[in-house]
């Protein structure tokens, strides 16, 4: 088992490789994160048909870090669904933000009309 340790002081993710060196199954350690990002990212990664397994766990409630594991079908490196999941989640948030702001504007415009 090869643990790729980076010794940069403020690294936020430390990938720990397991099950061989082909990179299909990787456990990422995300620091300063909890269910907020863990569960939403897990949902986005699970929506990817190339992913065989995706799960996260909080190692200990006193430490704020999560183990995020991705196993892919075939020979796709696990970093790819991770990256795609993050990008998809960004896309979702962007769309939610745009839709929400548009709805707020419409609601306020409609209330202005009703007041007059």
């Amino acid at each position, binding site marked *: 088992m090869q643990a790729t340790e980076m010794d940069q002081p403020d690294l936020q993710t430390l990938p720990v490789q397991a099950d061989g060196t082909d990179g299909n199954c990787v456990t990422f350690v995300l620091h300063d994160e909890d269910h907020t990002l863990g569960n939403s990212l897990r949902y986005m990664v699970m929506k990817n*048909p190339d992913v065989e397994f995706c799960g996260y766990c909080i190692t200990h409630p006193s430490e704020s870090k999560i183990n995020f594991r991705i196993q892919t079908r075939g020979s796709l490196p696990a970093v790819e669904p991770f990256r795609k999941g993050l990008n998809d989640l960004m896309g979702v948030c962007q769309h*939610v933000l745009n839709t929400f702001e548009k709805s707020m504007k419409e609601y306020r415009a409609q209330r202005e009309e009703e007041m007059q």
Partner: protein
Amino acid sequence: MAAKRRTDEMRDRVVLGEFGVRNVHTTDFPGNYPGYEDAWDQRRFEEEFRVDVIREEEGTLEFDMVGIDAAIANAFRRILLAEVPTMAVEKVFVYNNTSIVQDEILAHRLGLIPIRADPRLFEYRNQGDEEGTEIDTLQFQLKIKCSRNPQAAKESSDPNELYFNHKVYSKHMTWVPLGNQTDLFPDADFRPVHDDILIALLRPGQEIDVLMHCVKGIGKDHAKFSPVATASYRLLPDITLLQPVEDEAAELLQKCFSPGVIEIQNIKGKKVARVANARLDTFSREVFRHEGLKNLVRLARVRNHYIFSVESTGILPPDVLVSEAIKILMGKCQRFLNELDSVPME
């Protein structure tokens, strides 16, 4: 057909049974259901997603988010509670406190007072920095002394008549600009959100003279930094009558639900019950206590329809809070994407 209906129910309803809740977890992942396209499709998501603002009053916002999953809706709720930053009193320098309220209790109370200051104008304080600079600190002063009123009537026992300044309110907190803050914020009015928060009670001769430093923080660190009184969501209720319900049963059914949910119509002389507005129900499950009614109704919730209710403490308006929460989630993703790009993965 029945099988498809059952699968559809499993996919998009959470069913409340008599003794338990069924279909709780999201199962629509690729490969689980043959014949359904479940892989992530941004275009399909954008077509089906919508936000409906129901009500906006001062400080409260109620809106619906339809077409999103529990994981993401919950992420927004958690961020609203714990990760949207605000300014709150962190350090209290006590120069004189002869009141009956102990220093630490007074400091705790001052910390919980919501401060009307847009946190986006300030930076976080650097760790280890004790004094604070003008870009990360707001200074307030509370200096008040209670004295006896010489004009009070001899037999009066009303403290309002007998003493001056015996109640210390949050309106007695004054902003003391640091450095160049008067130039940075020329028309800003930094003060507590509410003027009538009672901080302490004094009697003649007692005084409080403290200086307070407000810093930017998040709810995860201390609940005083949380910008919402509360932020919560519930799923849209879905009540279906499996068989027609008439006469006394209809009356009883109407009483089992919150007012306005079931309405009785008069069809050909008979009283027939109909689901008028399931959204109003709070699901007390009273139907299950009546043997004759419990098999006639299906109580469920629509899995992807979230009714959010955000109540702000007054620091920022609730719609700004929701926008900030969404941006914070985007910021988290961006942080990890930057990490992935900067560090070569082996």
